[in-house]
């Protein structure tokens, strides 16, 4: 079990670090993070599928300033691992993976707040040295914060995966609803969040509504052309 969890946890730590601390290159976005997890498990296509679905939800939660927002890096690893571990995509696999990722992202947001509070405590402990312009204090505070963030991501992913993966497996085994309908409900919920998020982001932009309608017509045209 530990050997199963360890690579997933390490990946969750690295991708959790990307959310805020280093390097914010958005490898922590679900589209990327869940796909990388799929690759790790040997199921890149499954990773991409769940990553794209989670990305629709993540569009609503952008990392604005000091606001409290969900942590998607570690959460996408948990969701991606649960979905990719079921490569035949049985009924309920996608729904369970999304619920696991959403629960992890919620707790992840809380752990980030705690980390920021801890950073303030560590800065307070070095206040005199910082006021005196100590090079060592400035650099060590930065390194301690980043290390703590990495460990936070590792611990969060390990605990979430260890708890939620068996629960998800149980739910998938006892699932009664049709597979395609289940997946349709899951992805419709995710896309509804994306639609609401896009409205909030762009409705005040002049002309954006017409661009959206134009895009929608083109999207539907391509969809029904296939």
């Amino acid at each position, binding site marked *: 079990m530990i050997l199963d969890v360890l690579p997933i946890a390490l990946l969750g730590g690295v991708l959790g670090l990307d959310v805020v601390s280093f390097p914010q290159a*958005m490898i922590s976005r679900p589209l990327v993070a869940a796909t990388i997890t799929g690759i790790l498990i040997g199921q890149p296509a499954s990773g991409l*599928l769940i990553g794209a679905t989670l990305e629709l939800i993540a569009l609503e939660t952008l990392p604005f300033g000091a606001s409290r927002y969900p942590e998607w890096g570690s959460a996408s690893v948990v969701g991606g691992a649960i979905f990719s571990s079921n490569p035949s995509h049985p009924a309920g696999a996608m729904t369970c993976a999304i619920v696991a990722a959403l629960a992890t992202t919620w707790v992840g947001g809380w752990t980030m707040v705690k980390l920021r*509070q801890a950073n303030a405590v560590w800065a307070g402990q070095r206040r005199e040295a910082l006021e005196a312009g100590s090079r060592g204090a400035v650099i060590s505070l930065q390194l301690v914060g980043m290390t703590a963030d990495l460990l936070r991501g590792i611990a969060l992913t390990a605990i979430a995966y260890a708890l939620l993966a068996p629960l998800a497996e149980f739910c998938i085994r006892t699932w009664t609803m049709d597979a395609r309908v289940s997946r*349709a409900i899951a992805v419709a919920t995710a896309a509804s969040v994306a639609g609401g998020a896009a409205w909030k982001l762009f409705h005040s*932009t002049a002309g954006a509504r017409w661009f959206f309608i134009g895009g929608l017509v083109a999207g539907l045209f391509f969809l029904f052309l296939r």
Partner: protein
Amino acid sequence: MSAAAQPAPRAVRIPELPFRTRLSIFIRMLAIQGAWNYESLLGNGIGFCVEPALQLLPEGIHSARFKSALAREAHYFNAHPYLAAIAVGALARAELDGEPPERIERFRTALCGPLGSVGDRLVWAGWLPLCSLASLALFGTGASTLAVVAFFLLAYNLGHFGLRIWGLRTGWTHGLRVATALGNPVLRQGPQQIGRLAALATGIAIPLALGRVIGPGRNLLGFVLVAVALGSLLIVRLKGRIEGWRLSLFVLAAFVLISVIA
């Protein structure tokens, strides 16, 4: 003296930062939020990033000048992490030019607000959703795993790294007069233009992504599209009373319970 006889204005020579120092600052900028906290916010990160430039002070790193400059730079600061590069470049220049400390303090205070709001609108509310939606549209067309992920990472980070490099260079070039750089057309009009493109990408991406995730079957897809329209409307009408992602967690968790128990 006639105008023609006047000497040409002397070109101001901008000193160059050594490549190693620039590289060191750039790598540190990627970790600028490493010690982000609710008291000094980005402050320690600014000190951390400016420090390689302060090492160039002629008095050396054990001098009072170095220590007072580093202490000043590690004070409270708030900005968008990418656009903070402008502040890092400008502050490094100001410290090396020996600007008076009070002037540097005033400059830091004045720069906080604009760098935060401009960056949030340009990157978090513009570039990131645009790249994400464009990648989802590409996913919906049936592109390969590698193509979708590579497209997102390349497109996003072209803007990300480009903004950081431009910010550092602009800040260093203009020093304390960097406020003029915030009038750059990309920063002023970029969010509007990106917003329109992102709206276009939203329209294309949602139906195509739904189509790929659900798979073949027009009837089911038609129902889903109607459900998405109604669901989006509901989330908009809720006006933030509950965030969409939390609502979706409750809805899907209830669905899991029903599907397992029923």
